[in-house]
């Protein structure tokens, strides 16, 4: 067998947990278990086990720093107890004063992305240019190639979006199929109008 010998016992789990702690404190974006394993020169299963240890140490209520799984990786953030103090010192430029138009556009990109400006305009019924530019500047969405048919630039949400909204990934967004009744109402009303016109 050519499995590296170091995995047997020379590096106990709590030692690996310290390394992971160090990597996460230096990182400015969430790190995946694979990235942590690469940097720590260890394997992913052991990194995940060690993340459990680190998470136990840095959990809400126990420490001012909290380990969380967010945006497809692991990252430290400030505890909620410290939020007020943080808000006195730090700005939140990415999410401050998000307009209704920007939020709707963000929702469309998050649920249907990657999608282009024409796609967004089709759903919202108005041009999406300024909302898209605004979200790009805030770093909440980013370019993601071009559409195959018309070649329009398509957009997707960024890891920053997931982090700000506290999402482990985009699949953590709630399903929207549940709001069905209102759709049927609209449909019935339109059918009634159509019948009147054909009569």
């Amino acid at each position, binding site marked *: 067998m050519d499995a590296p010998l170091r995995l047997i016992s020379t590096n106990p789990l709590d030692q690996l947990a310290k390394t992971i702690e160090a990597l996460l404190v230096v990182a400015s974006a969430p790190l995946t278990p694979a990235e942590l394993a690469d940097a720590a020169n260890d394997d992913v299963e052991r990194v995940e086990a060690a993340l459990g240890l680190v998470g136990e140490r840095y959990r809400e209520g126990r420490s001012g720093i909290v380990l969380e799984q967010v945006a497809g990786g692991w990252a430290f953030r400030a505890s909620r107890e410290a939020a007020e103090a943080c808000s006195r010192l730090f700005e939140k430029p990415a999410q401050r004063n998000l307009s209704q138009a920007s939020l709707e556009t963000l*929702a*469309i990109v998050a649920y249907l992305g990657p999608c282009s400006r024409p796609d967004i305009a089709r759903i919202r*019924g108005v041009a999406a240019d300024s909302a898209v530019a605004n979200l790009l500047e805030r770093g909440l969405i980013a370019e993601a190639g071009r559409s195959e048919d018309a070649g329009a630039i398509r957009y997707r949400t960024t890891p920053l979006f997931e982090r700000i909204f506290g999402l482990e990934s985009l699949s953590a967004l709630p399903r929207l199929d549940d*709001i069905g009744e209102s759709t049927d109402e609209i449909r019935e009303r339109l059918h009634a109008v159509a019948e009147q016109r054909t009569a």
Partner: protein
Amino acid sequence: MIVRELELDLDAFEGPFDLLLTLVLKDELDLRDLDVAGIVLAFLERLADHDRLDLEACGEFLVLISALLELKARGLFPDEAAELAELEPEEAAEELARRLAEYRRMKEAAQWLRDRLDSEGDRFFRLGPAPLAPKVEQPLAPQDANRLADVLRFLAKEPAQVSLAHMALRFPPVAQFLDRFRAVLKKRSRIDFESEMTDLTRVEQAVAFLALLELRRNGEVTIEQAAPFAPIRISRTDVEREDSWTLRSA
């Protein structure tokens, strides 16, 4: 105020509103290039010139501009119009319902994001650019130490001093030319500036000209030039006086 005579100055069109409408109706002006907001602004500016609100003009304008807007909107979605026109009323209603439902879902999603932002408002975390990835080292092939020494020797050599001698301007004293002009004028009453300058450098010519101006200031000479770039003629002042006397006496 007559709406049809409203003067417009737009990127795509310049002239009266009336002509614009004619061109649009004849398909000679593409509505897609037309800034309708610009027309509204022009109308509002004109409206502001009058003290009383001209309701008749406003009404007429509203009708015309909404017709223009509808034409433009249709022009912007040609495929969609055809697509929807082909649909039966039931299908069109179905399509419209689908779109409205989709928009409503997105509005709900936006509301969820808004609520989420409020509930997660106390999240603070480090924001910054992604840390630098380790640079890939590109090892050099084995090198000859003598070549390195040669290059270093070449770089260590003191560069040759660059001579600036040709840049220095040496100005001869003005007095030298004052004396020279006075000497020449003592022998001849009239001289030609250019013919005196033939063997001089540019800088000397400039100083000579300064000397000439100095003589003129002292009233020792008069200077004449028939036209720009024509020869400059210098005469001794006392000679001129004799001339004028001769002329008058003749």
